[in-house]
């Protein structure tokens, strides 16, 4: 390591120039704000042909025959054509995991509505859809497994017959629960979160082309994890990795949906190689809603034990995750449920714990990890339960949190599921939040009567977000993707600029800016002269990519390490040019400085590349390009956290909820760019509000998805998302470069719990407690009516 020190106190200085902590405008916004971003659908290749897919209209059926009109035989492809293509397999190493094989085009059976059955190619998408409409399917309908609660019943239809049941994986995490059983407070609830669709502005899309000279398939695809797509594609197509190049251009929102290997990617890759065609498939919104991007559907039967003062004695939980029909690549069908069992206790202390989880196969499209992954459901279940404990104990909900949260003096802390909390002051965050939302004022308002008859409620929720967890965590889950050291390449260019190449992908996180800030922090180069290259397997080092709120920690560390190496080499060359001993120089503000003289990095670069004749013969030949590798000192993850507090007004007759005030106190460690962090929180909050109040993908008993357009699948918009009041704490992580922590997902985790707790607080006088998201007008009114407090029909 070099003499560049990661002094946390100096790094954390707010707004310091362009380095770590600066509220720098995003470099990438220039092209985005001018409409000059380039997305997959913007890519034009000569003679580009469009692909439309024939998709299964049924949730579960045996394929008797696929009839393709004679005139379309050459442009329609089914599973029978895909010689040499193997199914997508995402196997978990967890004991007992059952393997699903996801054929890229359906084989034998269809297992969810929207499953790909045939690929149709034409000059335009409309014509390709005409061809798709001419293909007829002879399907023998089978009973659909549509309800995860019934999927384990005896006699249930089987999604994968050879399993003998519908369970991908059952797991148990237990720390003897019996000492909790005599607790004076015992509350039990059934809580669930609806199935959702991730709904980024841009759906998925693939453009495929084959280069005969390079003997290489290039796939343009909106991918958060381009190198992982290459792994999966190489496996499925059975070709060497070097014959595949994945280019991931600008992405209009990832959220996990763009971390998944798609059967569409395999299909287009196969056909582009086989026929040398340039092909395009752009997902439309109906495909997105009904055939992809499903997430979130959890079911909890949970009991919390506590002492009379609200101190937790233990939690006992059975949780089910509706994993859908297949294990998606690379995260697998059981990441979500495995997470539930390990993160349910959250940042709370308790002596006893038991959680049994089931990842259940159903005739729905595969569940994918959406921003926050299992944390949103877990936070929803646990934080609703803590409010129930507060009600049973007769104390304020925030008191329950304060009595059970990890204390700052206990950090670092290993909780009951052996999660290693690196740092933080959770009670302080609660205090700041309840001060900001002004609990006393809300309680006083509640004692009065609102002129419009609405009821006021206050809710809060606490979450922690394990981020950038690495080898030690993922090796245990044994999924196809285990992150190791993260690498970045830094190259000082002949004109004194800096090129950085990373295998992660930036799609809203602002990494083109924040990684430049890291480079500036170390090398002092103006961020305007720092270019961050990402999204191309041919140009970047291998990486598992952008997921799990890991990129700032991991790629930031790798860029920092690479820049330190460049700094060392530049100092050695600079010292030679200054005719000084390397020990006598230091790097300051982009210049190598001796006691009385200095030389700029751009001059050093110019000399190295353009005037090597000026270099002494014994110069270090390593040059000014370097690959840096990085892992935090511990790779068990950073723990950022936040407290969300919200005041709502609820109309008990219409079931409408208005968010009156929203406070977020957030601790993401040292913030590289606080403005970008604010943006991440705003976006996450919007999605969390969607989970809380609007988003739901219902299915009927035949397994048909019922929300087929955005008229039925409601997303929050500007009028539904209030501007939250943000407050930052910055407790450094002791394990990472600069003390940074991952924060990308947090905003989406806490809102459903906070908002539901607030609505329950408002409706508690009516005897109402809502336990199922989204808390739609109908669910609220049904609960009000069921509570028997409402008057006759028109209360």
């Amino acid at each position, binding site marked *: 390591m070099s003499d560049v020190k990661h002094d946390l106190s100096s790094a954390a200085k707010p707004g310091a120039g362009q380095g770590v902590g600066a509220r720098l405008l995003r470099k990438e916004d220039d092209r985005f704000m001018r409409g000059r971003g380039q997305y997959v659908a913007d890519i034009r290749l000569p003679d580009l042909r469009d692909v439309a897919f024939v998709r299964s209209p049924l949730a579960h059926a045996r394929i008797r025959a696929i009839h393709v009109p004679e005139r379309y035989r050459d442009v329609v492809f089914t599973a029978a054509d895909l010689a040499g293509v193997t199914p997508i397999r995402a196997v978990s190493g967890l004991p007992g995991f059952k393997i699903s094989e996801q054929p890229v085009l359906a084989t034998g059976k269809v297992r969810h509505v929207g499953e790909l059955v045939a690929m149709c190619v034409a000059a335009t998408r409309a014509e390709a*859809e005409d061809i798709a409409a001419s293909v007829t399917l002879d399907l023998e309908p089978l009973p659909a497994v549509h309800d995860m609660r019934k999927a384990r019943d005896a006699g249930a239809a089987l999604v994968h017959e050879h399993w003998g049941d519908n369970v991908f994986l059952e797991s148990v995490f237990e720390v003897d629960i019996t000492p909790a059983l005599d607790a004076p407070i015992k509350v039990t609830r059934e809580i669930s979160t609806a199935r959702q669709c991730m709904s980024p502005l841009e759906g998925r899309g693939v453009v495929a082309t084959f280069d005969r000279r390079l003997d290489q398939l290039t796939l343009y695809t909106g991918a958060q994890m381009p190198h992982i797509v290459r792994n999966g594609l190489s496996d499925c197509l059975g070709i060497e990795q070097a014959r595949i190049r994945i280019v991931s251009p600008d992405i209009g929102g990832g959220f996990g949906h763009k971390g998944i290997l798609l059967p569409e990617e395999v299909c287009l890759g196969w056909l582009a190689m086989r026929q040398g065609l340039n092909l395009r498939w752009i997902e439309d919104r*109906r495909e997105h809603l009904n055939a992809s991007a499903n997430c979130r559907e959890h079911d909890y039967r949970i009991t919390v034990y506590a002492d009379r003062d609200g101190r937790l004695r233990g939690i006992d939980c059975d949780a089910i995750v509706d994993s859908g029909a297949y294990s998606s690549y690379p995260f697998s069908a059981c990441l979500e449920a495995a997470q539930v069992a390990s993160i349910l206790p959250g940042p709370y202390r308790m002596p006893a714990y038991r959680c049994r989880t089931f990842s259940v196969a159903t005739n729905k499209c595969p569940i994918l990890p959406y921003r926050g992954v299992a944390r949103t459901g877990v936070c929803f279940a646990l934080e609703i339960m803590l409010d129930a404990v507060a009600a049973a104990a007769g104390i304020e909900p925030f008191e329950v949190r304060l009595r059970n949260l990890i204390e700052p003096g206990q950090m670092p802390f290993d909780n009951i599921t052996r999660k290693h909390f690196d740092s933080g002051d959770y009670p302080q965050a609660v205090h700041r939040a309840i001060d900001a939302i002004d609990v006393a004022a809300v309680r006083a308002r509640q004692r009065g009567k609102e002129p419009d008859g609405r009821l006021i409620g206050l809710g809060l929720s606490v979450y922690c977000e394990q981020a950038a967890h690495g080898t030690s965590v993922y090796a245990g889950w044994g999924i196809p993707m285990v992150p190791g050291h993260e690498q970045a390449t830094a190259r000082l260019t002949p004109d004194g600029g800096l090129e950085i190449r990373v295998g992660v992908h930036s799609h809203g996180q602002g990494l083109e800016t924040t990684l430049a800030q890291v480079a500036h922090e170390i090398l002092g180069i103006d961020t305007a002269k720092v270019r961050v290259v990402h999204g191309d397997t041919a140009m970047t080092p291998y990486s598992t990519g952008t997921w799990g709120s890991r990129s700032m920690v991991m790629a930031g560390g790798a860029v920092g390490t690479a820049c330190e190496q460049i700094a060392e080499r530049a100092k050695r060359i600079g010292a030679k040019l200054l005719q000084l001993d390397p020990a006598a120089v230091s790097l300051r503000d982009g210049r190598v400085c001796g006691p009385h003289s200095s030389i700029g990095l751009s001059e050093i670069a110019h000399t190295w590349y353009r005037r090597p004749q000026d270099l002494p013969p014994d110069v270090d030949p390593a040059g000014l390009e370097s690959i840096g590798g990085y892992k935090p000192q511990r790779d068990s993850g950073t723990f950022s956290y936040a407290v969300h507090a919200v005041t709502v007004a609820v109309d008990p007759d*219409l079931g409408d909820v208005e968010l009156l005030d929203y406070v977020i106190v957030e601790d993401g460690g040292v913030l590289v760019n606080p403005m970008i962090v604010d943006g991440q929180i705003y976006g996450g909050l919007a999605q969390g509000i969607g989970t809380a109040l*609007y988003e739901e993908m219902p299915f009927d008993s035949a397994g048909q998805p019922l929300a087929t357009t955005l008229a039925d699948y409601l997303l929050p918009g500007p009028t539904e998302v209030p501007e939250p009041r943000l407050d930052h704490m910055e407790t450094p992580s002791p394990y990472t470069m600069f003390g940074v922590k991952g924060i990308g997902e947090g905003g989406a985790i806490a809102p459903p719990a906070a908002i539901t707790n607030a609505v329950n607080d408002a409706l508690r006088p009516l005897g109402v407690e809502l336990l199922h998201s989204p808390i739609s007008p*109908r669910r609220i009114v049904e609960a009000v009516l069921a509570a028997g407090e409402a008057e006759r*029909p*028109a209360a």
Partner: protein
Amino acid sequence: MKAAPFLYQRPVDMNAALALMAEAKGATKLLAGGQSLGPMLNLRLVQPDLIIDISGLAELKQVKRSGGELVIGACITHGDIEDGRIPDVTRGAMQRVAGAIAYRAVRNRGTIGGSLSHADPAADWVSALPALGARIRLRSLAGMRELAIEDFVTGALESVLHPAEIVEAICVPVMRPSARWGYVKACRKPGEFAHAIAAVLVDPEAATARVAIGAIEAAPVVLRDAASLFGGRINGDFKRQFDARVADALLTKAGITNAADRHIHVAVLRRAIDEAAA
């Protein structure tokens, strides 16, 4: 998704349009603002052989006062009404309804005649116009007929419109000075289709009341004489006389089995009545 292939014609006048419709073989759809038809074409929910674009027909953009009513051409947009570009005989009621239809982009193109032809139960005009006592004029080569809006819309996306017939105009009666208007809808989000609508026109002087309860997945429940909701007769005290049980029974009879749904509809109706009484 992209629309299935279709033929497209843009006639220059009403007679040409009617002739095209009379001659057409196979399925024909009229295109006015396209705000409902466009998405349905792209989703391939409708796959007409022929689309006749009537948005250029001057005859359908006329508005004129005729006796006790205002005759509004079918291709007048919601935005025309919202912005006051056409006269008003409803003391601002239609302007307020128009201004709350979907989003401005939809109001710029969507037409009053198109909305009624489409007959989406959650659409605003389908409930508001029956309460205002409006009538609809339909024309074909065989001639013209006129009927009450509530007789025109017969169900969800269903009307009595014949295949060769075109909605020509909407006739809205002049609202009496003593009449009181209330219009309330419940939407998950501003601009979304409503899940409950109530339109109320009460005239205590004339002792009359018209009420429409809409967005019920069928044609709206229209009471031309709504006295039963107010204890049998209409007077200045109608707000207090409102009997929610009668409304609830009407909704049950209309097939709404979910009690929470009925509760929301009745609450919306009560608020429309409150607005009329305010």
